[in-house]
């Protein structure tokens, strides 16, 4: 059934079709009288980041909840790796969620568990061997540069540290899809930059498909304008796109009242002559 629904790109004979990591097809959702998403369609390929922009209450976070199967659409199809998840029951959704990492707005760390236990949560639930768990947890905490906080409790962490632990927790198990729900909201600019760098590293170095919900313009600037490379010594550097290179693995969609009013590259977004978008981008 999913083959009929999927808009996988068909390649010449002998090559396998490219199946998008995430695909929304005519998704409609309403709570009572209020329409939250109206005929929303988009795709996210492997290694691509889709920035979802929009004001408060425009349905940005709902997109993420739909991908996780936390809520079901009233109509339309949502495909993860070519598989329609709308008809899935709870058990199938639980299995599907294991290939998705989710970073919440405030981190959503489990208060009663230490940083180590939070990051190890998914592996512990799967009954993985203790040594393997420790190795993976330390690797992930190194990735977010928080190895020193391994024994701390969430209450002892700053807002930025909580988000970074949330990212480490989301990345355990090497998910192929990572969802960010306003991960930089309320953070100071350097910490917000660090979070964006982590998202760029995931996109460019780990080939992760991601959705980055935000309403902050700095996130747009970093994610659409910079890329990560690794030098011969293994150090990661961030470079800005320019005349030599234009990033094609990051796109923007903008929501308004549950509808997509823009979909494309950031350069196209800047040129759109729409009063709502102009006001959103420039604040006036």
């Amino acid at each position: 059934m999913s083959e009929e629904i999927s808009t996988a790109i068909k390649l010449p004979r002998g090559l396998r079709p490219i199946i998008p990591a995430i695909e929304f097809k005519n998704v409609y959702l309403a709570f009572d009288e209020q329409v939250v998403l109206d005929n929303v369609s988009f795709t996210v390929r492997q290694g691509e980041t889709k920035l979802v922009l929009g004001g408060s209450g425009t349905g940005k976070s709902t997109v993420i909840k739909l991908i996780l199967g936390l809520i079901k659409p009233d109509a339309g199809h949502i495909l993860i790796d070519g598989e329609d998840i709308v008809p899935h029951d709870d058990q199938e959704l639980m299995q599907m969620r294991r290939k998705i990492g989710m970073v919440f707005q405030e981190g959503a760390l489990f208060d009663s568990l230490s940083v180590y236990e939070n990051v190890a949560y998914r592996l512990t639930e799967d009954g993985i061997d203790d040594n393997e768990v420790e190795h993976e947890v330390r690797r992930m905490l190194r990735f977010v540069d928080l190895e020193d906080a391994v024994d701390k409790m969430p209450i002892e962490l700053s807002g930025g540290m909580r988000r970074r632990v949330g990212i480490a927790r989301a990345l355990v198990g090497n998910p192929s899809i990572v969802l960010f729900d306003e991960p930089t909201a309320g953070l100071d600019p350097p910490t917000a930059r660090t979070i964006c760098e982590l998202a760029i590293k995931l996109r460019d170095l780990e080939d992760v498909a991601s959705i980055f919900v935000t309403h902050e313009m700095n996130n747009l600037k970093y994610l659409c304008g910079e890329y990560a490379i690794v030098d011969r010594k293994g150090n990661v550097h961030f470079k800005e796109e320019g005349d030599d290179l234009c990033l094609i693995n990051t796109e923007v969609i903008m929501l308004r009242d549950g509808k997509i009013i823009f979909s494309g590259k950031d350069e196209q977004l800047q040129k759109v002559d729409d009063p709502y978008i102009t006001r959103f981008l420039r604040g006036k």
Partner: protein
Amino acid sequence: MGPFLKLLSELQEIANLVVRIVRGLRKSPRYFDEMIRQMDLIGVGSIAIVCLTGFFTGCVLILQAFPTLEYYGQEAEAGRSVAIALIRELGPVLCALMVAGRVGSAISAELGAMVVSQQIEAMRALGTSPVRKLVTPRIIALILTLPLLTVAGDIFGLFGGGLLARQLHGLDTNVYITSLRMGITIEDILGGVIKPIVFGFIIGLVSCHKGLTTDGGTVGVGRSTTDAVVASSVCVIIADFFLSKLLQGFFTSTMF
């Protein structure tokens, strides 16, 4: 939505929760560690207040009943009167109300805080069922510990009654114990244990439901905590009536 529809909708949600609990019981993981931890928190943590409540309930029963028994010349039946009142009714109900206040509120507040801080969503996003991980262990822990707590409360109540009868009214301890043993039947004890099992299920179910349906931030947590205690206490008292009637019919030889 009118109050009647709201009530129906809430009953539907509770029924759904029960179905998910039952379905979850058949699948692993079953979180035995969490269940043991909850039994410790609920059972061991509540034993002091339950015993204290039981002790003073036994005392007040003697205080109120003894003059009447004395009037009819039935002082020797003091033990029986305390035993019947305590084991059949007051023990299970008071213990359940104390646990609803202490544990029901804690469960609702904990789950409610997890909901508003997105921890429940995070748990689901990480592929864990909150019903199996959080709700089922708490309800099973309540079902297992509440009868034990009730028995402990009953024992302290009987002890308190006997102590007051001797100290205040000079009743011989042997007379009290003999009357007590003559007054209790096996049906009394069975009824006194069956009731807390049902009450434990009710308290757990209502508190978990209220906690998981919390909305409106920290104010919502406070509201759901209050609702959990009030709703579970009222449900316990209503269920007590129907259970008493049911057990009365079941154990026809006794007067429940």
